[in-house]
Each structure stands twice: as structure tokens, then as C-alpha cells.
């Protein structure tokens, strides 16, 4: 099972919405990650057949479905804002797509399928209730169960957990992961949150301003982003990006010069260096570490971690993620360390990656 997009573009009166998307979504879990307005919902609407692309083709298992309407596509859609029929019981909500399906399953077959899904999603004791008698998380599980009822070839989940509690999201993410890990159909899950994409660890498509700018396993994209935009989309806290003057033997970071192998900078006099916040430490970890200073604007302590927001001597901003509690007062100057092996390099103009960290977290 696979859903293939070939050169799919979409524009309307307001302008271009999707540009030349050529990606293949295989069976199992696929994650579409990108900020708000990147085009995630638009792309899913095109996949569902709710909107026809302006150009390009869509194939399901090799068959051209570009002109197939939403009714005739085997597609289910779960929206961020969970939608259930308020006047129907949970059972009838889940059963509704089966009752109108062209296969016309028997009553008995419908009951079996509904019970199977209820079991899978922990809804068995709730089948007789109305949606309004359920919590938000339970309502979204009903919407998901309904989307799965017909065993569609393509299941589209558009930020389905965005409106839920943090803890509930954690729990449902785990449930969805086990639900879809061995799926035969193509499941596409969209999110704006980097942690969610890394959590699923599935094949991931980074969407930015209507383009798929990189695809691959989530961790691979995090470690080897092809551009500064990919690095940004996959980092939370945001990756630090600072200007760096380059010489034959080294570069600068926040006003400090240090030596490192600059051969990957391709002779450019200035590049952007990228450094993940958790790669900065307040003590020296290695003799090759580079020391720099920053003025603390703010220290945010979560209990397990501390985020130090720093202003560097160059006026640039950097955030440091530390394990544990470091309640540093604002306006304190701190000395911090990073290792050149943890740096990303990006072209100042195009944003293209020049190099990635040579040292990987094992």
C-alpha cells in the first residue's frame, strides 16, 4: 500500500499554496511536520480528494486517483477539532461510516467491527454514552475509531492531539503508535511539534511554506538537517543560530574565536553556526571545548531542566538547556562551553547545510 504524489501543486486566488510535491507515503506511520501555515492541512485535503491539485498526479497503489472524488477514495480524515455526532451514542458514531459504506456490511459485522475498535481504543465501557458525556481525550478517541471503522487505504490525522491536555497527548501518542505500527494502510499524521515527530520516530516529511523540504526518519533529520529551516522545524527549544566569520583555521561564535576544521565551509567568509541548546554546558566537558560568555536575560526552571536565555557579546540570542535547576539571576554573566564537534554549519544565504555534527549521541 502506498500513496504517491507526483509534482503536486496547488494555487488559488490568494496565491500558491503547495509547490511541486513529489513524495511517496508508504504503509504504516508517516509524520508530516511543519509550523502553522506550512500547508499541512492543505496537503491533506488534496490527499483526501477534498481539493483537486492545480497540477500533478496522485497515485494509490500505482493507480491514478487524481480525478477520483472524495466519496470514491478510500480515505478517512481526523481533524484537530474532534467531530462526533452529538445525538448519537458512541456505538452509533463509530458505526456510522459502516452503515453508509458501499460494502453494506451486516448488522452483525458492524457490531463486531465497532466492538473490536472500542476494545482497541479503550472505549468499551463508554459505547452507550453520548459524546457530550465524554472527556476531550475520549471524544477524540471516538473520532479516531470512526475514522478507522472502514479500514480505509489512507488514514489522515491532522494534528489530532493538538487540543488535548499535555498528559493525555502523551498517552494517546503511545496508543496511536502501537495501533499503527503494523498497519497495512497508509497513515499520515501531521503535527507542528518537533517533540511529537521525534517521539513517533517514523518516516517524517518536513513541510515549510508549501514545500516538502526534507524527508527521512525523524532522528536522521534532526541530526542531519539539509537546511537551517529543517533544523528549526525539528528543534524545541529552538536551535541556536549565530553568525560566524570563517578563516582557514577556524571561526567565531558569539565573539569568541576558536579553531576547527573549516574545510566544509567551502571558503565562505561568513556562515551560520547551529548549536542545539542541550549541547551547551556550564562546565568544561572536554579539553577541546570552546569557552564563551553570555548575559542571562532569563532563567526558566522547569524542575527537571533549566533554560537559560542568553545575550551573547555580539548581541545575538542563545538558549541553553541544562539538566537540573540553575536559578541564575537576570543580568548575570555566565561562562559556557560547547564542543566544535557538535556544530552544524549553514549557508548564510540559501540556508543549505554545509556540515552536521561529527559527534553523534550514541
Amino acid at each position, binding site marked *: 500500500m502506498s500513496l504517491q504524489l507526483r509534482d503536486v501543486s496547488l494555487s488559488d486566488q490568494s496565491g500558491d499554496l503547495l509547490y511541486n510535491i513529489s513524495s511517496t507515503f508508504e504503509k504504516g506511520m508517516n509524520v508530516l511536520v511543519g509550523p502553522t501555515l506550512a500547508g499541512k492541512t492543505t496537503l491533506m485535503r488534496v490527499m483526501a480528494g477534498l481539493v483537486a491539485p492545480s497540477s500533478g498526479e496522485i497515485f494509490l497503489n500505482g493507480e491514478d486517483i487524481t480525478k477520483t472524488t472524495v466519496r470514491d477514495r478510500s480515505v478517512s480524515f481526523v481533524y484537530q477539532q474532534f467531530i462526533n455526532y452529538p445525538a448519537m451514542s458512541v456505538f452509533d458514531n463509530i458505526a456510522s461510516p459502516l452503515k453508509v459504506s458501499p460494502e453494506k456490511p451486516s448488522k452483525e459485522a458492524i457490531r463486531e467491527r465497532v466492538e473490536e475498535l472500542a476494545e482497541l481504543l479503550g472505549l468499551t465501557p463508554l459505547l452507550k454514552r453520548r459524546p457530550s458525556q465524554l472527556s476531550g481525550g475520549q471524544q477524540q478517541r471516538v473520532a479516531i475509531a470512526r475514522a478507522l471503522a472502514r479500514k480505509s487505504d489512507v488514514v489522515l490525522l491532522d494534528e489530532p492531539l493538538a487540543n488535548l491536555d499535555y498528559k493525555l497527548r502523551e498517552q494517546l501518542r503511545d496508543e496511536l503508535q502501537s495501533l499503527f505500527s503494523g498497519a497495512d494502510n497508509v497513515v499520515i499524521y501531521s503535527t507542528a511539534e518537533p517533540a511529537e515527530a521525534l517521539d513517533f520516530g517514523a518516516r517524517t516529511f518536513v513541510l515549510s511554506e508549501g514545500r516538502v523540504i526534507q524527508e527521512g526518519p525523524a532522528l536522521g533529520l534532526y541530526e542531519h538537517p539539509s537546511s537551517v529551516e529543517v533544523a528549526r522545524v525539528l528543534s524545541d527549544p529552538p536551535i541556536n543560530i549565530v553568525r560566524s566569520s570563517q578563516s582557514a583555521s577556524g571561526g567565531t561564535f558569539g565573539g569568541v574565536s576558536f579553531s576547527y576544521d573549516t574545510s566544509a565551509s567551502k571558503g565562505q567568509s561568513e556562515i551560520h553556526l547551529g548549536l542545539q541548546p542541550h549541547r551547551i554546558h556550564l562546565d568544561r566537558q572536554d579539553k577541546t571545548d570552546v569557552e564563551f560568555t553570555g548575559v542571562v536575560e*532569563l532563567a526558566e526552571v522547569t524542575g527537571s531542566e533549566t533554560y537559560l536565555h542568553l545575550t551573547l557579546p555580539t548581541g545575538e540570542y542563545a*538558549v541553553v538547556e541544562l*539538566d537540573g535547576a540553575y536559578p541564575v539571576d537576570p543580568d548575570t554573566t555566565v561562562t559556557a562551553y560547547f564542543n566544535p564537534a557538535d556544530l552544524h554549519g549553514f549557508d548564510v544565504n540559501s540556508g543549505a547545510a554545509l556540515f552536521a555534527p561529527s559527534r553523534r549521541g550514541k
Partner: protein
Amino acid sequence: MAKIELVDIAHSYDGGETFALKKLNMTWEDGKAYALLGPSGCGKTTLLNIMSGLIRPSEGKILVDGVDITDKPTEERNIAQVFQFPVLYDTMTVRKNLEFPLKNRKVPAEKINERVAHIADLLDLTDDLDVRPGKLRSDLQQIVSLGRGLVREDVAAILFDEPLTVIDQSFKWTLRNRLKRLHLKTGVTLVYVTHDQTEALTFADDVLLMRDGEVVQVGSAEDLFLNPSHEFSGYFIGSPGMNFMEATVTDGVVEAHGVAVGKATDSSLSGPHRLGVRPEFVEPVSRGGLDFSVTKVENRGGFQLAQLKLADQTIMAKLAPDVAIAEGDTQQFRFVPEKTYLFKDERAVGALKSTQSGVQK
């Protein structure tokens, strides 16, 4: 600036049958930043709306500097509220939006200009004063909403109802940073409602963790993380939350799944308890620890999450990205003493005592 007190406040939406907010006494110190944190339906928004005057509590009263304001309507309270979605007039410029609350109160024009200029300066909005809010990014629109709340001079507190809901991930960081710095500059009391633990913990001096209409624990982020007084603090704070195991204390020795895991801090504890340890405090040791089989390891970029098994109990350990660990291994871990708690009826009653067993790797 003022001290706000809630005295025996409770609220029921169904005439007293069930309470969305159970009896609560709380003093909000002048100039502190508070967060109300909890899952949906825990009563946090009800509490916020009682303070702003959108809801009249079924029981109890609210005092501002000792004056009872329980029956005062919203507009007569000097408490400002910022909602999930920016509430702005899009036919007006940012300047006109900021002037609006003052014009309504018939403040002299000169004073209005002075206040608007001051607030714009404080919020870095000076360059945006003559544009319409619709032209601004969503995070800046929220800053303008905040400005409208702050523009009055007599504001005792600003209440935020999940103000980052519609803000893009990447701007959340900068917006939070601005709110926090603003708090340091103005010293106005802030109360912030959210279900996002990171937001609550980073924002507030004190977090009120709520569940089922009750405040379960009040404390700093560090307190809630390191010293959970209730199982719910263990569960709700931290990602993933605390691991819990059924445990029995016999003659001071704590046993979980037939394995002695340590001694209890309090020698009077005895019988069945629940043992709680955060994934951050399941620590790999080279010897003297407990044998776990490693059933799953996930690299999440900034950290590794390992699923471990002790007898038939599965627990999670959060490890630095460079700790060597592989699925299928049997490795020794210890539960860090004093950070591993014993709970009885959901309340923390003790911890594992620090005895030197286990050598840190």
C-alpha cells in the same frame, strides 16, 4: 498593586450537586507570578473566571487589600484578563486598541498618550502602533491584548487564560520570554492558566497543580519535580511522568516485585505502599544496583528513553544521549535515594533512605 485573597471559595455549576471547584483558601502575594496547571475539567479556568468576575462563586469571597469585591462586576475590578485568542478590534490601529480601555474610563487625553507610549515602550510595540492588529503575527497580537490589560495604571493583577494556545511553537519561546521579562519589570501579579507543564513551570514562581476541582500541591517548579507531595504531582509533572510500583515495607526494608530496593527514611512505615521514581532518577550503576532487562531504547534527539523490566514491572528511564545502552541488555540501575518516594493514599509519606549502595557510572 494589591494582595488578593480567596476565602473559602467554592463553585458549583449545578446548584450544589457537584463542585467544579472545591473549597479553597489562597492568598496571592503582590507581584508574584502564579500558574494554575491541570488537565481539562480540573477547575482552573473556573478559578480564573471567579477572580476576574466572569463567574460569581457559589460560596466564599474575594478580597483585594481586605476589601470584599465578590459582588463587583468585571469592569469595576482592577483585574485584567488575556484570553486564548487575541481579543482586539481589527478596524482600529494598535494605538487605538491600547487607548480604548482608557477612553472608556474617560481618562484625559494627555494621560492616555503618556500611558500608551509607556506601554508600547515596555512591550516593544512602538513601531507597530499605527498598524492594524490583523497585520501582526499571532504572538504580537497577544502582546497587544496584554498591553490593553496593562494600560490602566491601577491593575492589581493580570489573568491569562492559556494565552499561547494559538501561538506557533517557535514563537512560544520568545513570547514566554517577553512575558517573563515584563513581569520582572512591572512587578504586577500574574496568574496564568495552562495545561502545558512546561509553560506553567517556566512561567510561574508558584504553580498550583489542580485535579478534580482541588489544588493538589502548591510549589515552585523545582518543588513539584523534586518533592512531589502527591502521586498526581509525580504523574502530571515531568515527561514521561513518575514510574509507580506496588511496594511493601517490612522492618524498614522496601520491597517491590519481590526485590528489596532500599530502606525507608521513616522507620515507622510498614505495609503496602506505592513507590514512585521519576525516569530521571533511574540511574545506571556499575555495581550494587538492581538488574533490569532493557526492553526498548528510543533516541529522541536530546535524550534517550529506555524501557526497563524488573520482574513483570515495566518502568522508564531517561538517559543522556551518550549513555551506552542497547535493547536486550541486562543492566544495573538504582533508584536514586531521597528522590524515590513512598506514597500512601496518594500522599507522599517517606522516601528511600540514602545508604551507599550502587556506584554511579
